């Protein structure tokens, strides 16, 4: 019995590593896309131009009000089903791009709401102090307010980041070859192993360790920003 697991283990780990690399890639691409896009969306939702503000708030409502899995399915299948033109292609690359788009849109809406609160929480006096010193609006934002905002939103952003790590598993629904997909492959049969469910369970370890590392790193960043109040 034990022998079987010892034999399977290196094969499974190898496959899971490859899958996890795709998980990691999706995580990073989402973060790199959604953080700046979220900031832009937060400006839109604070805009003094009412039609823009209402439009942005409507989009945020829809995106936050529907499951990410449904959004992913719609983004991936809708063009092919309705326009008979699968813009994403059937390959892994196409699936990855479609997934990235869905994740970036979804997460940027969540991030934007956190940013919005963070910007609103900075005292008006900071703007005024910048203005009377002759600074431009963008200098005030980037040189005065941004770091204060980052400090105040780091705890909720950290939370979203840990959730994002786990949410990447939703990409399994359109057969993106991430770590869950890689684990599940050993149930149907792959590389001479079939009918095994333990590799799927074992993927949890990957998420757990990666989130552990992130928790430590984000905690360090939070500590680093404690130099001011």
């Amino acid at each position, binding site marked *: 019995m034990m022998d079987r697991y010892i034999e399977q283990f290196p094969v499974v780990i190898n496959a899971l590593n490859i899958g996890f690399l795709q998980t990691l890639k999706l995580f990073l691409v989402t973060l790199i896309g959604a953080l700046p896009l979220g900031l832009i969306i937060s400006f839109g939702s604070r805009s003094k131009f009412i039609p823009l503000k209402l439009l942005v708030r409507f989009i945020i409502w829809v995106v936050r009000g529907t499951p990410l899995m449904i959004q992913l399915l719609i983004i991936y299948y809708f063009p092919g089903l309705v326009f008979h033109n699968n813009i994403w292609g059937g390959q892994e690359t196409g699936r990855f791009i479609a997934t990235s788009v869905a994740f970036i849109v979804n997460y940027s809406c969540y991030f934007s709401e956190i940013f919005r609160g963070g910007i609103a929480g900075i005292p008006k006096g900071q703007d005024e102090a910048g203005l*009377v010193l002759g600074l431009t*609006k963008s200098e005030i934002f980037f040189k005065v307010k941004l*770091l204060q905002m980052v400090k105040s939103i780091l705890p909720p952003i950290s939370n979203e980041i840990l959730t994002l790590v786990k949410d990447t598993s939703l990409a399994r629904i359109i057969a993106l070859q991430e770590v869950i997909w890689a684990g599940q492959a050993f149930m149907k049969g792959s590389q001479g192993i079939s009918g095994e469910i333990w590799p799927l369970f074992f993927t949890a370890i990957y998420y757990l360790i990666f989130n552990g590392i992130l928790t430590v790193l984000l905690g360090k960043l939070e500590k680093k920003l404690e130099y001011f109040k």
Partner: protein
Amino acid sequence: MSILEVSHISKSFDRTEVLKDICFSLNKSDVMSIIGSSGSGKTTLLRCLNFLEEPDTGVIKINGEKIYDAKDQEYLSEAAKRSNRLHFGMVFQSFNLFPQYTALENVTLAKELHAKREPDFKAHKKDVLEAIREEGKALLTQMGLADRFDNYPHQLSGGQCQRVAIARALAMKPDILCFDEPTSALDPELTGEVLKVMKELADQKTTMIIVTHEMSFARDVSDRVLFMDDGYILEDGTPDEVFNNPKEERTAQFLASFNS
């Protein structure tokens, strides 16, 4: 000639008229205190000079040159307000220091950002930044903060923070330094150190406008005192005239409330 001429400034918020046809002028090197009860419009007047509020009507001139005219679009753009407001330095009641910067960085930040906008900045970068730092250190030293350059605002007392804020305003070399109730947020034992540096600045012939509730300070340091009530300037004279021989009954009432 007067350094500042303010004519027919008015300002309303929604339908409440906060400033009503304000006119006054100020001579170079004079210290002018503005007194009056809360809601009389003192702070709004100061904020109108900095364009933190936009006056609805009126004209502001510095050294005879127009820097604001409510009727002329030329003075209403963000860029025009940004460069014209630099004639005034501003010290806030709540300091408004930048928490993530040290005392010295608070003083030098705006200067550095202004220097970076100059086309030949890259060529002289090191010298320019060094000069700005030295200037900043000199200002903080003048404020009695020579040992506090590298402290962050949260490590400083309220009085020290306010002195950093004064140095920060002075760094821009304003024509007129404005104070909005600079000691109102301070514990009584800390107001003295702030008033002391303000007195020193007055002695060095800095032109200042001070909105204050510190009546004895206004009396001792000012060349001019304005008393405001309900958006109007009711008194405009020397401390002796306003404090000892007020023209209006309302002024006497206000001053009496401080003596009781």
